[in-house]
């Protein structure tokens, strides 16, 4: 089992969708919302995901395919 922390950023069209609920149902991954700020136009969630590392990766690729932007919680690590 592994734990991964990521930041989800939701575009406006996904704000009303239960993306995290669906992720927890479609993949064998435990989701834990640690911080969030969501309004009617945009939102971000810092999420802890626990599960098999491959399953976590698959769930993240799925979230990206739904239109969620997935980032490390550190912000961008690659600098100029």
């Amino acid at each position: 089992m592994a734990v991964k922390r990521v930041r989800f950023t939701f575009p406006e069209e996904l704000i009303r969708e239960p993306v995290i609920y669906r992720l927890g149902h479609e993949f064998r991954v435990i989701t834990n919302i640690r911080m969030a700020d969501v309004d009617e136009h945009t939102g971000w969630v810092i999420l802890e995901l626990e599960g098999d590392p491959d399953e976590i990766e698959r769930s993240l690729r799925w979230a990206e395919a739904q239109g969620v932007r997935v980032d490390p919680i550190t912000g961008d690590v690659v600098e100029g």
Partner: protein
Amino acid sequence: MSFATELRCRECHRSYPLQALHACEFCFGPLEVQYDYDALRRHVSRRRIEAGPPSLWRYRDFLPCDADAAIDIGAGFTPLIHAKNLGKVLGLPQLYLKNDTVNPTWSFKDRVVAVAATRARELGFQKLACASTGNLANSVSAHAAAAGMEAIVFIPADLEEGKIVGSSIYGPTLVKVRGNYDAVNRLCAELAGAYNWAFVNVNVRPYYSEGSKTLGFEVAEQLGWRAPDHCVVPIASGSLFIKIRKGLNELARVGLIDEPRTRMSGAQAAGCSPVATAWAERSMNFRPQKPNTIAKSLAIGNPADGYYALVQLRDTNGDCGSVTDDEIVEGMKLLAETEGIFAETAGGVTIASLKQLVERGSIHPDELVVAFITGAGFKTIDAVAGRLKPALEIDASLESFERAYGALAHTGVA
């Protein structure tokens, strides 16, 4: 000896020891170095600083590491220039430029890496790592070489050869990562967690970012121990922007300058402007972007300190410029042609934003303004190549010269 006491979460204010930690375990907020300011106040003086070396280590008492064991390749204490020519063009008689192009690896990154590397070695790390497209890679490679540490530098696989040489000359282990920008970011964040290396802008970030304070210290000292009225600073991760103000505030806190009322304004390229976009929308929530700009050294689409940059813009009554690639090139040319400083594209962003903010009325002519020029132009020659006045080509004879030069004079160019 350092006056640093602990790391503290900027959000929930929990305390942590001065170790290689960067995020709060409870709320994931960023950790920041705290100091014993009462002891610092008793210890420091203008005279003590002025008697120090002509480098950032003259501010050793304000840094979170033991300066006696500093990895010192001469970073800092760069010129502050009264930019009378550029100021005349922009209508700013009190315009100053902090010229950080003259650092050992030609960018301000030498400040942050000097502090990060020194602290990393103190903490027992033997390997210094980073992920970078240019300036940071150059500086980490150089400092590791001087420290006898191993440098591991991750770069995008499609990075131009010219940018690689500036790092590889120092002998680091260079790792080219195939994949898009997001994939490289994700891998490097994972690597930082998986290996016991000092990843300068990840696990030792609280120390790394403290190096940027020295720009604030220097500007205040070079102005005769006063804070500027207004700073214009390029924003990438946002760390430089907020730490310059932290430096000014610390000097005031220990009684070396009056309480600063400095307005802090930012500069971003339109092709990577998460902070400027949120600011224009009057939102404190930035949306990450995919960078698409010639200003590669500012191309951070998901800035770690983006939120805090927005808070600072609000709290200091600042503003944030956002400029196109064409405006960036014009900014580079304007700076070079008026003040003799060849800056990289980030400098073009700063100067073009400065111009934009003046035109917008956000900078007043009576303010003492400092614009921060963070890297040297030879690093981004491609950005201006082909857009400059071509050379005259002549035969090796006086007549040929006079014909060519005369033709130029005839057109009013010479």
